[in-house]
């Protein structure tokens, strides 16, 4: 035998792996290999539409597999596989479906951007699919180590995608900043895992939960420190104040469709694991962590809304608005109830489509080069492209929580969950922040429908540095905006989901209600 045979464990049990349970993730990763293989084997560069079509097909196959799993779980009950480290329960499969949908819409919208910017190749799509598989794994992970691996699979492609517009320095800056802070927060997260493992003797979530339910730890400093570090790690990923510092710069610097994708996907994946770890695993310690989440939620709600008011750059404004949205999702977590989890899950679904659509519009208005993101670029948009202005208005109003959109139900359910858990003060903070947020959404809407040209005195009196650089940027563009067919399709899907489920809410609500944890 080899000299290393002594290193081998005595009895190695190979865990049973149910491959059908992992099918959505496997489809995505297999699809990545196909994409990369096709791009390598074809002698000439294929148009970006070919890869986009392949990506949509791959994501649609994952969606079908996820829906089949959903049917299985609803009919035959939830189960775990791979030695209890993968959960296949309603909650996980709900996010599998959501992530598949995000991937489809993001591929459609991204192809329009890539064609406009003349970026060929399969990289954008391959990275998006890898990242999506990470988000899926994160939602179904039932083990802290597994969550960490999934978190990295989710994040690393996003770092690259943030720097995809490699000729623009802000994009490079976004990638580096996201990478450094992401790596830092992952390190904090791993330290948290280590401490929780030290205190409870397991990284498996149900085992940790069972241990805490049956034992009273008298000196729980290590455990609490571990939980605190886990909260910090998750808060970085979902951009909760005060761990949000990277968000505006990264969202602003990344190519616009990537920003939308990143916002939808990272929030969905991050919050899925956040909810599972805290609501399903640490409910016995809620007295310790619930106040922390309360404070985080309040800070995130108020901080995001107020700082967004001061933004002139629409991408930056939407970045702060996404922070505000993270606050709303945290409210559902803070409730620590089944209703709260369902409300948060609903919020993430609604938010994903609203944010993908919003950033798609911003990408169109940004025009070739993806640079025109000042508020002034939106002045009189309704005259230049009435349909685009209407679509953006609907998406912004949905984000503000106007009735007959999914945004309204999202806000309504988290606040109801919060009231149900007797967190009245937080509900009041949430409503106040929603009222503040209406202002900056409406400001964009009003600008789009304003017929009044920008004050010409402005340009004359405030010449920018270096010979009126600012003045040229601020000048209103004229002529029609070109909306590519693929982006129009992506927008139609986003607005469709937002409005249809806003007017006819029952199916999505039932879907969310059935998204429950297996261990609770």
């Amino acid at each position, binding site marked *: 035998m*080899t000299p*290393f*045979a002594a*290193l*081998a*464990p005595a009895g*190695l049990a*190979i865990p049973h792996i149910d491959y059908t349970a992992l099918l959505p993730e496997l489809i995505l*990763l297999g699809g990545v*290999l196909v994409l*990369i*293989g096709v*791009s*390598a*084997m074809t002698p000439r*560069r294929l148009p970006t539409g070919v890869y986009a079509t392949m990506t949509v097909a791959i994501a649609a196959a994952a969606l079908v597999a996820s829906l089949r799993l959903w049917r299985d779980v609803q009919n035959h009950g939830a189960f775990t596989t791979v030695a209890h480290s993968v959960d296949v329960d309603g909650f996980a499969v709900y996010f599998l479906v959501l992530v598949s949908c995000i991937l489809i819409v993001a591929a459609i919208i991204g192809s329009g951007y890539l064609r406009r*910017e*003349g*970026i*060929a*190749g*399969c*990289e954008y799509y391959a990275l998006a699919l890898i990242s999506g598989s990470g988000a899926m794994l994160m939602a179904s992970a039932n083990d802290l180590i597994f969550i960490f691996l999934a978190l990295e699979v989710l994040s690393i492609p996003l770092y690259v995608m943030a720097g995809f517009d*490699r*000729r623009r320095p802000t994009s490079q800056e976004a990638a580096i900043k996201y990478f450094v802070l992401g790596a830092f927060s992952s390190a904090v997260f791993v330290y948290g895992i280590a401490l929780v493992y030290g205190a409870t003797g397991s990284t498996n979530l149900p085992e940790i939960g069972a241990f805490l339910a049956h034992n009273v730890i008298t*000196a*729980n*400093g290590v455990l*609490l*420190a571990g939980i605190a570090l886990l909260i910090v790690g998750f808060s970085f990923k979902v951009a909760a104040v005060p761990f949000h510092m990277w968000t505006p710069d990264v969202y602003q610097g990344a190519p616009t469709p990537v920003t939308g994708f990143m916002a939808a996907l990272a929030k969905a994946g991050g919050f899925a694991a956040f909810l599972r770890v805290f609501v399903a695993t640490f409910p016995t310690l809620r*007295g*310790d962590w619930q106040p922390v989440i309360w404070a985080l939620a309040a800070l995130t709600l108020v901080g995001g809304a107020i700082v967004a008011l001061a933004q002139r750059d629409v991408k930056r404004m939407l970045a702060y608005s996404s922070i505000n949205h993270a606050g709303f999702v945290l409210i559902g977590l803070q409730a620590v109830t089944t209703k709260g989890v369902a409300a948060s899950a609903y919020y993430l679904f609604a938010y994903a489509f609203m944010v993908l659509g919003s950033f798609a519009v911003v990408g169109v208005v940004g025009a070739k080069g993806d640079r025109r993101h000042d508020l002034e670029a939106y002045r009189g948009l309704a005259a230049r492209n009435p349909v685009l202005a209407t679509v953006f208005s609907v998406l912004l109003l949905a984000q503000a929580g106007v009735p007959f959109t999914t945004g309204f139900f999202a806000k309504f359910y988290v606040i109801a969950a919060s009231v149900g858990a007797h967190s009245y003060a937080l509900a009041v903070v949430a409503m106040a922040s929603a009222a503040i947020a209406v202002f900056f959404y409406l400001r964009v809407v009003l600008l789009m429908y304003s017929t009044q040209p920008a004050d010409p005195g402005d340009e004359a009196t405030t010449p920018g540095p270096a010979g009126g650089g600012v003045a040229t940027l601020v000048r209103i563009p004229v002529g029609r905006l070109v909306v590519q067919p693929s982006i129009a399709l992506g927008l139609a899907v986003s607005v469709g989901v937002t409005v249809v489920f806003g007017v006819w809410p029952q199916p999505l609500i039932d879907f969310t209600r059935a998204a429950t944890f297996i261990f609770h």
Partner: protein
Amino acid sequence: MGSLDSYLPIFVLLVLGVLFAALSIGVSRLLGPRRPHAAKGAPYECGIVPTNELPRRFPVRFYLIAMIFVIFDIEIIFLFPWAVIYDQLGRFGLVEVIVFAGAVFVSFIYLVADGALDWGPARRARSFGSEPGRTTESAVRRVGAAGGRAE
């Protein structure tokens, strides 16, 4: 108090940490002699004093070579433990490793198609769009005496 007691050591450690940092900086401010010198302001206070900026750019292809190294390195990292307990993993392990090696191979093909092993005259990169506005004149910052090519 009760549950708050457990936070006390953390709090004490925090205070101690802040005090230590503040004390160290404060004491060195107060007592330390101040003799500024150009060498002390240099990026590294050791080695040869740099005379000018590093003049050489090196081809980005070296990174692709590094990537090839990394993917095979990772493959070995996973192959090694598999080989050690090959008997116990049995057919399951063999299939898993073949699938894994397949994934690595596809990424290798991708790298080769991207020109990682082309060492002839420069060819246009495949995967990204061409950049017509970008020439050697616009992209290369000449350094060295009189803007000449520093070799």
